[in-house]
């Protein structure tokens, strides 16, 4: 860990004023401190935002507004979240460990860095960490890596479970900078790696997530998150699926599907959603729709199983949701 300047402002205005180039915001610290110890991230200034008034989990119409500093554990346990968006609560509980969930913030969760072993190892090349240095994962150890949204410069998997659930729900985030506030779709926060994998987010320097807004979706009470991984807790997804279904008289009227462990960003699957609409709810429709999930996938030497696993995970999630 390198030496750095530290400040702990108490207002959002002061925080965004501090958050100029070379600075990073510290919330729960569960990613940042880790990466600073590894010297993967070496900020000159750390701005501790924990004193900011970015709290609260409130109904907003039939949706929910969540302050960016709410802790994962508190959001997962909140009755409103559990009732309106069970997929969000489940995705949170499937992430990290209880200790980490007690610390990690919602805003930080959405900005967590990839678990790619080359990214986390400063002795390795990595185009995300050192642009132009190369991507050893493409011909290296890549079982956990992405098959969707990859490029020749980066195949790292987006790690957040929460983001997958929120992208399925068309979530918005509020961003504050020194001179403005804007609201964007969470899906638009993330950038595909392309040939600039170092640019992970569409955030401007100093911009701070203040709120996460899940818009109302009355039928999202029928939603679930399924995570498939190498052990049953405290491990990132090999595959995951956030699914929500609205059925009437056995016919699927609407569906939301997003998947994790597969993409370089949280991956929504509109073609699978389209394929489900209007079909009789059941395994044949789920399997037929899931066939479209891996379109455009580019597998790597160690993860050729992922397209199959992806389809199976969606089918299983839908079957379990259907009960």
């Amino acid at each position: 860990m390198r030496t750095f300047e530290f400040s702990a402002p108490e207002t959002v205005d002061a925080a965004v004023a501090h958050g100029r180039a070379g600075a990073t915001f510290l919330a729960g610290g569960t990613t940042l401190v880790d990466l600073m110890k590894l010297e993967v991230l070496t900020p000159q200034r750390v701005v501790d935002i924990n004193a900011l008034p970015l709290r609260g989990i409130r109904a907003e119409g039939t949706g929910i507004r969540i302050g960016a500093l709410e802790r994962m554990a508190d959001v997962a346990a909140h009755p409103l979240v559990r009732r309106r968006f069970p997929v969000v609560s489940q995705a949170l509980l499937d992430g990290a460990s209880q200790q980490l969930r007690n610390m990690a913030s919602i805003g930080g969760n959405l900005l967590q860095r990839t678990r790619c072993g080359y990214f986390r190892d400063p002795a390795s090349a990595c185009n995300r960490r050192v642009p132009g240095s190369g991507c050893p994962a493409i011909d290296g150890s890549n079982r956990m890596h992405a098959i969707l949204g990859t490029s020749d410069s980066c195949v790292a998997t987006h790690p957040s479970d929460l983001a997958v659930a929120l992208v399925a729900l068309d979530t918005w985030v509020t961003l504050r900078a020194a001179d403005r506030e804007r609201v964007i779709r969470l899906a638009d926060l993330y950038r595909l790696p392309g040939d600039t994998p170092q640019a992970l987010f569409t955030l401007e320097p100093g911009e701070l997530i203040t709120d996460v807004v899940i818009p109302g979706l009355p039928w999202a009470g029928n939603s679930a998150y399924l995570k498939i991984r190498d052990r049953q807790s405290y491990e990132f997804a090999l595959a995951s699926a956030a699914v929500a279904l609205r059925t009437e008289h056995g016919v699927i009227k609407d569906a939301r599907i997003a998947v994790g462990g597969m993409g370089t960003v949280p991956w929504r699957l509109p073609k699978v959603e389209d394929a489900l609409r209007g079909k009789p709810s059941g395994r044949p429709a789920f399997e037929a729709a899931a066939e479209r999930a891996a379109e455009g996938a580019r597998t790597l030497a160690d993860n050729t199983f992922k397209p199959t696993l992806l389809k199976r995970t969606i089918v299983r999630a839908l079957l379990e949701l259907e009960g």
Partner: protein
Amino acid sequence: MSSPLGTPVDRVDGLAKVTGAAKYSADRSLDGLAFGYLVTSTAANGTITAMDVAAARRSPGVLGVYTPFDPLRIIGPATNRSGADAPLQTKDVHHYGEPIGLVVAETFEQARAAANTIRVSYDVRPPATSLRDGIPTAVEPPMRDDEPAVVTVLRPGVPSIEAALDSSEVVVRETYTTPTQNHMAMEPHSAVASWKAGALTIYTANQGSSILVPQLATAMGVPADKIHAIFPFTGGAFGGKFNTYAHITLAAAAARELNRPVKVVFTREQVFSATSTRPDTVQNIALGARADGTLTALRHDAWGTASISRPFVELSSHRTSRRWYATQNLEISQRVVPLNVPGTSIMRAPGEATGSFALESAMDELAWKLGMDPIQLRMKNYAATIPGGNLPWSSKHLDECYRIGAREFGWDRRPREPRATRDGNWLVGTGMATAAYPAFRYPATMKVAYLWDGTAEVSGSTSDLGTGMTTVLALVGADRVGLPLRRVRARLGDSRLSQAGFVGGSCGTASVGPAIMAAVQAATRQLLTLAVTHADSPLHGTPIEDVRYESGQVRSRRRTVPFEAVLRATGSPRIEGEASAAPGNETRQYEMDCFGATFCEVRVHELTGEVRVSRMLGVMDAGRIVNPKTARNQIIGGMVWGVSAALHEGLHYEESGRLANGTLADYLVPVNADIPDVDVHFVEYPDLIHNPLGAKGIGELGIVGMAASVANAVYHATGKRVRDLPITLEQLLD
């Protein structure tokens, strides 16, 4: 008074451990302590051409920067090591993550920050990092057991093992592989070293000061009596703290150089690369049998990685197929492939854990092929002697383990066919395997003292690796002196105590237990002599043959006096006896092993292939059980390791030698959610031929066979045989 020996008791040091009062090595702080941070190589084979340490030397708080260009003095070879690690003595590197530097600073954070500024240039040579690629050029290793690398036993008239296989009615011939593993003890390696007047005090967890002290003395170039090692608590070892790694030699050498105490703690990543590993293996097994299940031939060829820096032979075939089943024709072999990978060494059940995965999977495959129950097949080939041998076992109740296990687990209700049971989309299956582990015992010396305050003390230089050894010392002592456990104190983990030997190979209790028994006799003799000879003793003048000691009392025909009264009256703060015990002729007259059988039930998701273990049972034959509570804990721990080996663990090297997953985030071990309720049953037959206490080893037995048990259950659930560990879901996706 009834003895606490054999009753389930809490660890005597449990409270200290759970309250944080127990001081592990890294918890030690000394006046003027400086902190060392290790620098490791990022090449696996080659020569360091330059190390730019200018920025590190200028960094705040830095006291010393040591590299092969400016080394600390440590004596020892760089390759083919069996003694202490001697880093910095050569510019050659032999594996990725090898210690190549140490930065010492006023704080840990300063040392780490400075170490991260060091830039290293290498002249890199292509490393050898693949066991499979090396098999064609594998070599027969020097063997540490008394048998050669290739052992052949043939019935008279049979020309070769292949001829025996050719004439067998049924043959199973398969290849099994197991990956590299790391011990991954909860406590990472640490050492605190302090010199005074040419003598070194070292606080470091280890598996025996009888190994540590002479190795460290050689490395430091000082006589062994100048080294005092202190290690009352060890947070898990499993073979991983048997050797004297660089944290110890670097801390000691830096402390000498700087003339102030130095602490070195490895990061978890450094534990992976700078200590040692269980070698990966490739094993070919061929089983020949008659249609009735009688084994007619058993061939087991094993290859394992031997690190160039610290070589080791994982005795996969010699420690399993050599002695587990009756067969008239047997051939086993061990070969090694030298590779540019981190050190290889012993890890919990070295040989048995890997070998049993291959042998017990193959036995399961043979049972299916024969249409025979897997337990029946094992009973059909139950060994009364080892193949070609004639010595009886000192004690063997494996048949009872199978029987009790089958009954308790409900084995009879198991459908014969695979893929026959389901629960929704989960496929359910059960499997079992044999376990066996040699019953080792080594010479040990222990001391027992009676104290003026009415307590007794049992002491020796042995180590408590987290197994409960401290409690074992107190229990055996309490049993022999006839006092309640609370009146007996145990001391260990200090090289200046009686020389109790090392702890490894599950030998601890069987080695020190008899020595404690002998030491109690010696101490009691001293006590009785004092009681009758000292003028101030209440029993003064009683003929020695008329006094005896019993349950805290010294008795003559006329009087009964508490021992502490004798000590107080005679002004003796303590009276003690030291004694040694060692194995004898019985080792040449008997085969000695511990036995067991493990059973498990798994559920495999039909769509996504995840394996979940839903039930486990271990039935163990390990002689007398001294503390059922910690014994059960040992077996459960071993079985959890077996699940881990089956489903989670595997350290992978890239072609460059880089560790692909050498972090605790990427090298998976099970979490609580992966482990169901585990049931453990002991069949308790004290083995008094093995040693007078009758206890045998339990530290390693639980892991043996468990991975095969899981793999066999996966086969029963799915009809798919996985022969490469760990079993991951992609191997089970149709």
